[in-house]
């Protein structure tokens, strides 16, 4: 067990270190800060009560950047290992493929979560400056559910990168993320309005695709609504862990079948 923990720790550290050294996270972070921080001091359209719109815009940017980071980080976990052939000395060490997969996944998740935490911190500062409220439980809940979103999206992208080309995985996962955030909740009603194969396609998407809209509580944050019940929040996080577990199990199967 101790050796397994050492291995997982070494693998996840490698992923985090590489991702931060590549500096693309730093670029996204800087870009986010450049956009987010001035929002704290703007009075849009000269309307003093427009802070709600500023908050909405800031949250939209945080979600957009988190999708870019989550996908960008996890899609590059395995393809470069195969391209540069570092996978051979890696698997020649006394480490199982499942451990490699899990360690790398944890690394990608840690990197994404740490970047998104900084965004939420910046958002908290923004809200604090504009509204004088420095801590809201709903903000904590939103951040927690955002972590749930990252748990799912990084596992899904990792699976995609092992069964298709990195660009195809990136495109498909980006479409899934944006599509499910925008239309996930409406899929059953959209399916009910259809006849023929379209109905079955929508229903299949409803049952197979991850329900990422569960993790999106931006409106509660923007309109200062109360938190979602904590047991619901826990259930949603459990759903994230189960969905990610399924993706990782499939990724493990694909990794074992991959020709070296």
């Amino acid at each position: 067990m101790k050796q397994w923990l050492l291995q997982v720790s070494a693998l996840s550290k490698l992923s985090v270190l590489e991702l931060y050294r590549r500096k693309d996270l730093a670029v996204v972070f800087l870009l986010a800060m450049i956009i987010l921080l001035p929002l704290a001091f703007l009075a849009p359209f000269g309307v003093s009560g427009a802070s709600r719109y500023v908050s909405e815009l800031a949250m939209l940017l945080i979600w957009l950047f988190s999708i870019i980071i989550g996908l960008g980080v996890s899609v590059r976990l395995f393809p470069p290992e195969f391209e540069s052939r570092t996978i051979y000395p890696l698997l020649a060490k006394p480490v199982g493929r499942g451990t490699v997969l899990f360690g790398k996944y944890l690394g990608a998740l840690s990197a994404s979560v740490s970047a998104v935490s900084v965004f939420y911190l910046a958002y908290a500062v923004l809200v604090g400056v504009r509204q004088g409220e420095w801590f809201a439980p709903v903000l904590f809940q939103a951040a927690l559910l955002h972590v749930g979103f990252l748990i799912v999206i990084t596992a899904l992208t990792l699976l995609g990168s092992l069964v298709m080309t990195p660009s195809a995985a990136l495109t498909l996962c980006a479409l899934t993320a944006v599509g499910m955030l925008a239309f996930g909740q409406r899929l059953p009603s959209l399916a009910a309005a259809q006849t023929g194969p379209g109905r079955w396609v929508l229903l299949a998407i409803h049952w197979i695709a991850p329900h990422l809209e569960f993790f999106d509580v931006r409106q509660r944050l923007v309109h200062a609504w109360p938190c979602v019940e904590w047991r619901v929040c826990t259930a949603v996080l459990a759903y994230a862990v189960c969905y990610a577990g399924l993706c990782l199990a499939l990724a493990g199967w694909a990794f074992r079948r991959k020709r070296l």
Partner: protein
Amino acid sequence: MDTVVIQNVSKRLGGTQAVNNLTLSVQPGEVLGFLGTNGAGKTTTIKMLLGLLTPDAGVISVLGGDPAVAAVRSRIGYMPETATYYPYLNLHELLFFYGGLCGMPRAAIRSRAGILIERVGLGAAAGRLLRTYSKGMLQRAGIAQALLHDPDLLILDEPLTGLDPLARIHFRDLILELREQGKTVFFSSHELTEAELICDRVAILKQGELVVCGAMHAIAGDGGQNLERVFLNVLGSDAAKGVLA
């Protein structure tokens, strides 16, 4: 007990018979040169020795066990043919990473890494990112990572590629030192002159089949032949083109 036992092993990759009914063994403390032209099946055999590929037929035993088992691999050091490591790590970080994978405590990695970095002559460059390393420096980093956990068996795939003459001499000294320590070395190479200087035995592979296997003095020393001549005689004119290329 032999360190490496390959018994009637065959492996087909795609439409090609990469290895065909190969039987070979390596004794403890022996340095075996595994020779052949490009596409002869050397790397496929090495991948099977590391448990990365499963043979279609036959049996492979390494250090008395199945190389697919992690405990067996913990006693094997491997250096790949194309030594490209993580470009955003420095050599210290690379060795800490591989040491972690081997389950080595940090203090043990630190002391062993320090010795090996000096041994491969990369002391001055150990803090630099690997993406700034030359091909020869990466090869030397590869040797350091292969030796990090003090393995009983060292498997080296084309280890001399990209090494300058001085580094080759150092590499040769290192292999001879490992042999004196009782380590077994299995290395594939195109460098026949080096193989002749280092190896106790050589095995020559042609289109996946073993065509020559024996003690160096028996196959190359006889009648004033050197290994290059033996290689050309055994593999014919196709091999000659390969060697010249």
